[in-house]
């Protein structure tokens, strides 16, 4: 019992002066899988530096960076005016793809049609020359960066209907669309796999070329956030992400590397 107390006390003292090992990255669950991949390669190249990557969400990442809970924040949306003051590093652009079950005959949708399905105006696939079945739209949760981008790019002034299923990650949305024939959802282009398909919007497919040339307009920035000028290990990591090697990893995962955007 006494031991427990001493332990508690020492923990408390230790808690007041946190010394944490390695680089902690936190934030957007959309950025997480990509940065995780980069971090894996980074740690192979620099075995002395550990990188911890976790989700939490864009907002949590921004807050965590502001109060120092993490060293680097990730965001999949631009900062709000109230959140300014952080250093922002653009690492890539991410296209948002509207996805359907792979057996769905439809390959092309207009912005209005997508908006109609998510706002609850289009209730059956029949209205889209499909089968006479209900549309099951799957959206992201309130506050999600992907949802915010989707709302501003596709929904315009209309609100996403309450009847949509809600999931809290790209993967979870994809999982439902992959198993639900009537489903429609939206996720990062880089995460679309063979079990579902990304449809063309107004005739333009979300391919890498179309994204780079901005023919496919639905994309958003992936940002790393810093509280101050990066030093030491943190700066090594940022440099690695922006190096040709780091950018190649992001590019091969289906993102548009920042260097290419700048080059355009």
């Amino acid at each position, binding site marked *: 019992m006494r031991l427990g107390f001493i332990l508690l006390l020492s923990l408390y003292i230790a808690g007041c002066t946190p010394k944490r090992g390695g680089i902690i990255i936190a934030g957007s669950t959309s950025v997480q899988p990509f940065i995780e991949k980069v971090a894996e390669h980074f740690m192979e190249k620099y075995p002395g530096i550990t990188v911890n990557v976790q989700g939490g969400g864009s907002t949590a990442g921004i807050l965590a960076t502001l109060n120092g809970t993490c060293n680097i924040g990730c965001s999949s949306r631009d900062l709000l005016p109230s959140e300014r003051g952080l250093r922002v590093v653009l690492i890539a652009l991410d296209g948002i793809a509207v996805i359907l079950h792979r057996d769905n005959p439809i390959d092309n949708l207009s912005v209005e049609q997508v908006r109609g399905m998510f706002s609850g105006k289009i209730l059956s696939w029949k209205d889209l020359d499909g089968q006479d079945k209900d549309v099951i739209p799957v959206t992201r949760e309130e506050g999600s960066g992907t949802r915010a981008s989707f709302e501003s790019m596709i929904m315009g002034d209309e609100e996403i209907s309450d009847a949509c299923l809600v*999931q809290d990650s790209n993967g979870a949305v994809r999982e*439902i669309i992959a198993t639900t024939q009537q489903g429609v959802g939206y996720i990062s282009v880089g995460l679309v796999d063979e079990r579902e398909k990304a449809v063309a919007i107004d005739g333009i497919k979300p391919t890498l070329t179309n994204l780079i040339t901005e023919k496919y307009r639905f994309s958003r920035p992936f940002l790393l956030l810093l509280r101050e000028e990066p030093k030491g290990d943190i700066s090594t990591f940022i440099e690695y992400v922006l190096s040709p090697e780091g950018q190649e990893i992001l590019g091969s995962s289906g993102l548009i590397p920042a260097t290419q955007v700048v080059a355009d």
Partner: protein
Amino acid sequence: MKDKIAEKLLLFIAFSAILSLSLITFFIFQQGIPLIFKAGLGNFFSLRWAPTRGGFGILSMVVGSLMVTIGALAVGIPFGLAGAIFLAEFSSSTIQKTLKPVIELLAGIPSVVFGFIGIVILVPFIREIFGGPGFSVLAASIILGIMILPTIVSISYDALLAVPKTYREGSYALGATKWQTVVMVLLPAARSGIVAGIILGMGRAIGETMAVIMIAGNALKIPGSILDSVRTLTSTIALELGYAAGDHRAALFACGSILFLIIIFLNIIATRITNRK
């Protein structure tokens, strides 16, 4: 002297539970309650949940929580009571000794595993049979019902066993069958224990999060049928906490406060009932 110090120290330690409870209450309420007044009660108990655009209505989530809880009880109570009665009155002591711990083991299975079974088996099954997305009140009710079974079986079983032997003997002596004895004597006598078990199960169902997120679909709309998707208070918190900031986060803590109040209320009732006997 040594004894005196020990007593003081132990008294201090003994307050750890109530202290934790107070800290939890304080922090959840401190984060959540101001928003309720800022948004106004009318807004807070409305149907519009758009926390990034000033809509803080939790009504549909409260209704959702109640629906899955009632659904879970509809599954859990009959099976739980049947199991308890069968174990306590209709089976040999060997079966009792083996089955009771086995059923209690069910309580140890992590909720994510239940949710997973829901995703891979129950949801596709419902989708095949009834159509629709499969993520539904029905799926959540069945999975939650299974999850609260051990609580109900275990507590009801103990309550049945606690009924004095003389009651049974008295009833048999009057020529009643076992089943008649159960219905007319044992269940009424064990009523308070059984109700306490059900209330604790109810608390577990209303507070479950991960399994519900995985299988309920989480649509905000109040479900029109048991095949529709549903959103509970708990799933809202877990879904949105990661991305929430400012008033949005406060709104999630407000959801937590309401949930907390419901749970404490249920606990007080359960304690009242158990203490009465």
